[in-house]
């Protein structure tokens, strides 16, 4: 079984501040981490490898510094790492990002691709499903449990608003995972030592056979026009007065709205 994990290097949002004027993150001086959802993706890949054998490779698109995330992935036990990097990828939206990622996955080949549910900085949760579309394979998002996996198929439980679904997909397939799936392991000493010397394979658009117009800014149909903090959600009502009265008012309100 060959498994590819897409990991994104993101600023540690626990330590990030926001520029009030532009509404953007102040990234300077903020430590970078592997997108937390992606650490669950790595864990899932490693435990499947422990069960079925095979290899796990980690893939990221990002600036040269993103190499640090790939080395961290190797310290956890990932076998191989690929960094998609180059000026041509700058300004990518989710479509262009997915295009580049699917390019490298096509090149290395994978039976199963695992992504995080979403990135904690971009937050769109689009990249995983888009990669699957580019590869023309099935995908299951929001996976919280892997029930069964073998050389032909994968059976998972995915989170829904109103409970969960059990879904089976033929391989190759892509899944995106949520935190409930597992507890990511810590690195091992041997892993850390391997990570130090491991070769990180770097690839640009040319190596991936992607024309310049499909990646980066040029390949991005969406553009950020304005970044702002959304206002509070409307349609709320705050009850006041003594507790008993509030309870009565709430019950009346719910009865009126036919909620009770």
């Amino acid at each position, binding site marked *: 079984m060959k498994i590819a994990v897409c990991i994104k290097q993101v600023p540690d949002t626990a330590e990030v501040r926001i520029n009030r004027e532009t509404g953007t993150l102040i990234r300077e001086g903020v430590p970078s981490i592997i997108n937390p959802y992606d650490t669950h993706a790595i864990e899932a890949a490693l435990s499947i490898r422990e069960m079925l054998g095979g290899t796990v490779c980690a893939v990221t698109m990002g600036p040269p510094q993103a190499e640090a995330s790939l080395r961290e992935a190797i310290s956890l036990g990932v076998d191989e790492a690929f960094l998609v990097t180059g000026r041509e990828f700058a300004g990518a939206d989710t479509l262009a990002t997915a295009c580049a990622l699917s390019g490298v996955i096509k090149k290395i080949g994978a039976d199963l691709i695992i992504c995080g549910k979403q990135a904690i900085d971009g937050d769109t949760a689009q990249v995983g499903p888009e990669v699957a579309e580019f590869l023309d394979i099935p995908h299951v998002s929001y996976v919280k449990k892997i029930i069964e996996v073998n050389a032909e198929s994968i059976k998972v439980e995915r989170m829904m608003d109103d409970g969960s679904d059990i879904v089976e997909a033929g391989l190759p397939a892509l899944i995106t995972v949520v935190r409930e799936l597992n507890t990511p*392991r*810590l*690195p*091992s*000493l*041997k*892993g*850390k*030592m391997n990570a*130090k010397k491991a070769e990180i394979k770097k690839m640009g658009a040319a190596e991936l056979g992607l024309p310049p117009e499909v990646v980066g800014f040029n390949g991005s149909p969406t553009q950020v026009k304005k970044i702002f903090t959304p206002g509070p959600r409307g349609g709320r009502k705050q009850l006041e007065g003594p507790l008993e009265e509030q309870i009565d008012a709430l019950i009346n309100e719910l009865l009126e709205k036919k909620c009770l």
Partner: protein
Amino acid sequence: MDYFLSEEQLMIKELCAQIAQEKVIPVRAELDEKEEFPWEIMKVMASSDLFGLFIPEEYGGLGKGSFELTIAVEELSKACLGVSTTYAANALGTYPILLFGTGEQKKKYLPDIAAGKRLVAFGLTEANAGSDAGGTRTTARLEGDHYVINGTKQWITNGGEAEIYTVIAITDRSKGPRGASAFIVEKGTPGFSFGKKEKKMGIRASATRELVFEDCRVPKENLISKEGMGFLVAMKTLDSSRVGVGAQGVGVAQGAFDEAVKFARQRVQFGHPVIGFQAIQHMIADMATEIEAARALVYAAARYADSGAKDVTKVSSMAKLFATDVAMRVTTNSVQVMGGSGYMREYPVEKMMRDAKILQIYEGTNQIQRNVIAQNIIKEAAKAK
């Protein structure tokens, strides 16, 4: 202070700090409260390769030395001595095999130990043999292809939890100190059982238990080294492990000190953070100086051992003695700096002070360390003449 750690040593420190932060600190108070053995943490340490740190590569370890073990133990001890005692006692129990075991014994036991699959304990102490190992009553009698062991070991760290035990027993009482021998006994051997689990002041996550031998038959091949070498095995084992107790002292002192400084900067009385009072500042200055001195001595002793030095007894005793006395003083003063808050379980220094006390007692009390240091000085002086 920069001790010029190599890249690999920094990795070990970083990894242990991460384990301490993510896996130990969140549960240490609960483990202490419930007197619960830290199995989850041991599993994490096993998969992080930490049990193989000081075991040669040919047996699946990383082939590092005393110094690397020191760094690991220090980092873990900053967070919890109960956890670090469990880990360090595993090394203590392993040394007899590592230092004196036959090729067969090493091949049989070290790979599992390196992988953290089987935990080890060391059994020397008995009711009548504390500081005075000469009081050992447990016996081993050769009968055909087996030794038959009888007796009770007390206060054995990792007792009950460990799978492999290295145990000292008398094979020939007429020979006095040369009549003791060391054995490997596996959990599950008929005639080998566990007595009561002790309730303790501190290191309550660590298990301390009696080992009971009643006509326990172990194969002849489980004798470590030769008959009569038991006390030598024990002494060399303690020489190797003692620096680790020093490292525990440095770690717990640093852990308590960091809490005290953090608290003293925040706590306001008489309109100032208490760290502004000179009385507090001087305590903090003394603590920081003593911790650094202890660390320097412990590191020097570990590096001396790794240099292949033949006799490390005096130096390792000094490191253990000094660093653990510092640990007791610093944890006590950290509580003092924090006042009533320091005395409360809500803050970690209360536990650290309780925990620190054991370091002045086990693996040779600090009185015994002073005896040993003095005896060595007398010997050296006599030789120099």
